[in-house]
Structures are given as C-alpha cells and as structure tokens.
C-alpha cells in the first residue's frame, strides 16, 4: 500500500509540470489548448530517441523542452495569424504531432530499459551517499511497512517542479507576465496599452507546451519508455489537476494557485491509484475514472455552494419572522 502511494506521489510530482503548463494556457491565457496531448509525447519521444542515440539525458531533456516550446508556438501561430478558433488550432496541432512523434521515434514505442536516464543517474548518486536510509528509518518508526526503492527521484522531481513553480510565479508578476495575464483577461484593454497580444499568445502557448514536454520527457525516463499513445487524454488529466487543486487549495494569489495545481496533480494520481485497487476496476478503466473525477471536481463545489446559500437564506428568513413575532408580542403586551 505505502509503496504504491509513494509511486503515485512520485509520478504526481512529475505530472504536476504538465498541469502547470495546462494552468498557463487554460487559466492564464484563457486558451483551451489541446496541443498538450501531442506535445507531451513529443517531449517523451525527443528525449527517448536522443538518449538511445547516446546523448546525455540532460541535453536530451533540454532539447525535448525546446521541441515542446516550438509545438506550442505553432498552435499560437495557427490561432493568431491563421485566425483559427483556439480549440481547433489545438486539435489540428495535436493530430499533426501524432504523426510527427511517430516520425521522431521511428516506431510506436521506444524502450529505455538499460539506458542511463536522469533518474538512473540521480538514483545512483543518491544511493552512493546513502541518503535514503534516514527516511526509511522514519517510515519504519511510524510503523508503515514497505520501503521504496529510492527517495532520490521523489526529491529530485520535487526540486525541479518547485523551481518551475517559483519561476512561473515570478514571471507572471513581471511586466511581460502582467501583459500575458491581461491577454487572457481583457485583450482589448491590453492592446490599448501597447501590448502585442499575438506575440504574447504565441509565446505563452510555447511556454505552456515547454512545461508539458518537460513533463513528458521526465515521465518517459521515469517509466523507461516513450510511446505514441502515452499522451491520450493528457489534457483532461492536466485539467483535472488544475480543477481539483483550485477547488481544494484555493486561488487567492498566483503562488497559491500554482501550488494548488501541483497539489491537484498529486492528489489526482493518488485517487487513480486508489481507484485501481478496487477489485472490479481494470487499467483500461483509467480514462473513465479520470472523467468521473473531473466531473466530480467540477460539480461538487457548485452543489456545496448552492447548499450553503440555501441555508443562509433560510436562516435570514427565520430571523425576520422571529423579529416580527417579538414585535407582535410587544404590541400585544402594550395593549393589555
């Protein structure tokens, strides 16, 4: 149980990078960008192919990020210069990327089993320093059975994700970042303050898909393979993370929201791994489970809000009738 939860948290942290990308396009730019399904695989494919061809995993990951950035820029170009509807630009790019990804990989699946990846390097570095032992001791002291293979991947992913989070927080408060947010909020307004909304949309989608590709590249190295189908439904997973996170942790400030998105991505993974432990559910039910989680995350807050409102109104009404009653009572007393 603990080991599977540990695995869920570990991959949740890596998927959080993808969710941050989705947050940038969906929330900040207000652009429902479906490129994600394709660019996630692009990141994985580029990294995997470069690694099996002997490149260093670090360089492979950086190139994967650049590939994702370019894919996002193309979607932005389709929308701003080609005047294609946002949803359609994303879908077109997603379809195009499916073929491009196959071309990059040369086959539909690239295994990385015996290759050196970022994570194998981190793991051996971590275990050489014997850093896992203290954490394992804590776990044992808490009376939880089972020890994970290494703590290195968890901490490394957490550091990467937090760095990206803080950079995003900072960026969204810079002059360019403010203009980017205003582009999602009120295009007419920011254009009247001399911001080129086309460039901002293109660059913003580039950045968003760069995050997604980074996540894809890391997931491929974590899971030990890149697959043409690994991106299917990724946009919904990203959206689920954003929505769950926002509903649970709030959106008071940008820093809070990006943290919520990361939390949402981790919780999503935990929920899925719990759901898969239910006897009659199979791995193939994943997408259905995802859909149910998203619907629940979207509908539950509204129902709760409606109930709260109802209770509030009922209370108000009761107060007024009570007041009226006491007044009547006073009058009655005065008359007698």
């Amino acid at each position: 149980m603990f080991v599977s939860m540990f695995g869920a948290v570990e991959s949740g942290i890596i998927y959080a990078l993808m969710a941050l990308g989705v947050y940038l396009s969906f929330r900040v730019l207000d652009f429902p960008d479906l490129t994600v399904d394709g660019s996630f695989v692009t990141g994985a494919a580029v990294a995997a192919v470069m690694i099996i061809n002997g490149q260093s995993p670090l360089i492979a990951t950086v190139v994967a990020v650049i590939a994702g950035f370019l894919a996002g820029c193309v979607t932005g170009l389709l929308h701003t210069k080609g005047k294609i509807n946002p949803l359609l630009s994303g879908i077109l790019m997603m379809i195009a990327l499916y073929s491009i990804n196959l071309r990059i990989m040369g086959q539909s699946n690239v295994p990385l089993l015996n290759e050196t990846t970022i994570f194998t390097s981190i793991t051996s570095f971590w275990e050489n320093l014997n850093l896992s032992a203290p954490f394992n001791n804590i776990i044992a002291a808490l009376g939880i059975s089972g020890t994970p293979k290494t703590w290195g991947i968890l901490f490394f992913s957490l550091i990467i994700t937090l760095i990206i989070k803080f950079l995003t927080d900072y960026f969204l408060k810079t002059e360019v970042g403010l203009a980017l947010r205003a582009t999602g909020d009120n295009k007419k307004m920011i254009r009247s303050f001399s911001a080129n909304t086309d460039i901002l949309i293109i660059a913003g989608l580039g950045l968003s898909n760069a995050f997604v590709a980074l996540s894809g590249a890391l997931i491929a190295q974590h899971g030990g393979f890149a697959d043409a189908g690994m991106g299917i439904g990724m946009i919904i997973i990203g959206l689920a993370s954003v929505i769950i996170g926002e509903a649970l942790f709030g959106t008071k400030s940008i820093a809070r929201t990006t943290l919520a998105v990361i939390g949402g991505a981790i919780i999503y993974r935990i929920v899925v791994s719990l759901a898969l432990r239910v006897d009659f559910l199979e791995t193939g039910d994943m997408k259905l489970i995802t859909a149910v989680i998203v619907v629940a995350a979207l509908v539950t807050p509204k129902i709760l809000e409606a109930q709260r409102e109802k209770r509030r109104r009922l209370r108000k009404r009761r107060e007024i009738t009570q007041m009226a009653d006491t007044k009547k009572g006073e009058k009655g007393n005065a008359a007698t």
Partner: protein
Amino acid sequence: MLQLSQASLTFNEGTMDEKKALQHVNLNLNQGDFLTVIGSNGAGKSTLMNIISGSLLPDTGDVLIDNNQVTHLQEYQRSQLIGRVFQDPMAGTAPSMTIEENLAMAWSRNKKRSLKPGVSKRRKSLFKEHLETLNLGLEDRLTAKVGLLSGGERQALSLLMATFTEPKILLLDEHTAALDPSRAELITNITAEVVKKFKLTTLMVTHNMQQALDLGNRLIMMDKGQIILDVDGDEKQSLTIEKLLNEFQKIRGEKMANDKAVLS
C-alpha cells in the same frame, strides 16, 4: 499634433448594406486642444475614433500624430502614443487583476516590457500618489481585484491609466454614457482635471450635448460621415444647445433625428 487628411471609410462596399462611415474627413488638432465630437447615431463619431486609434484602417487618407505617419501602424503600436477610455467600464481594465497590477500595465505603455517585477516598491508609492488625486479612496485598495470595483470607480481608474503616462493623444469614447448621472458628473470633473493637469490633446465623443459644451475648447458636429460644424474659441464658449440644434437644422434642412441627444 493630430492630423487627419481625406480620411474615408466605407463598410460593405457594393452591397445593399453599403455605409459610408467617413467621407473625406479633414481634421487638425493643435497641441493641448480639447475637442468634443457630437452627432447622432451612425454619424461616424466612433469610426473617427477607431481610425485614429488604429482599430479600423481607413480606405483612403492618412493619420499623422506629431507629424509622423501612423496610418499603417497596428493598434498596439499606435497605443504607445494614444491613451483611450472606452464607453464600457469593463473594457478599460483587467477585472481579475489587482488595481496596482492594472496601473503597472498602463505604466508600461510607452516603455519596452521587461522581465522585471511590474509592481515595485517605488512604483507602488507613485501609483498611490496618482490614485489619491481621484479622491475615491482607491489608494488604500491597491491589492483589490478591479472586478470588485463599481462602474464609476473602474472608469475613474481607466481614465487615470489612460492619462498618467501623458500620451500624445487622449481618446474618450462616450466614457460617461454607461454611468448614472452623479457618477457621470464625477468622471466628467476628473476628466477636465486630468486633461488640464497633463495638457493632453484630447478628442472626446459624447452623446450629451451639455457635456460637449461644458468641456473643451473646440467642438465638431458630425453627420453622415462628414464634419458639418466646427467651432472653437469664443464662439464655442457662447454656444448653447438651442443654437446647436438650430445650426444643425440650418445646415441639413431637417431636424436632428436623435431624441436622446436632445434630451440628455
């Protein structure tokens, strides 16, 4: 400062709905001029505004700002020189962002946007000073989301954002029309103040004749895409609504069609 020469624009040319929105309009504003533009619906006031701002391109004719040809500059390029307040109080601000962030975006109008924080300590105190001049208490709500402000407050903020970088031209597009009378008066007063303070060359479209008479040193009346009346100086100061209506009748040989313009 602002020159429009032979500007023409026709919508839906060659169809049943053809509309000559602007016909060979010439306009020349000097530095510090405050021009009010009146006319009935469809007279071409908004088209004139949009051609100056760059939201619309003229079929023929040129727009010059400070003797520089800007006819072919895109809206976002031109807006370095032009401050603008829209009729809709929602249009001029970003609702989900804070007051200070909105001001920071406006402050970057005539500078290159960098990767430095938009709201620095120094800017904060600068924004506070500017907000204090509005007397609306907004200086104490720097971190409030603009979506929470009332229409009047938003329009006052839009006005400040449009003017405090001292643009070459200020365009006001019926910017008090969506407000109730008392708020409209407040915004009118603030407008007069800031235009005077920054000595802005201003062009204000309005449906409200009284407002057009009260504000500015020059007035033009438009009809069917043409400027049919142009008064300034003492003549403008002595104008009354009655005189304006008579003038319109004399020129056009018909009564002014728009009741709204008469009543307001």
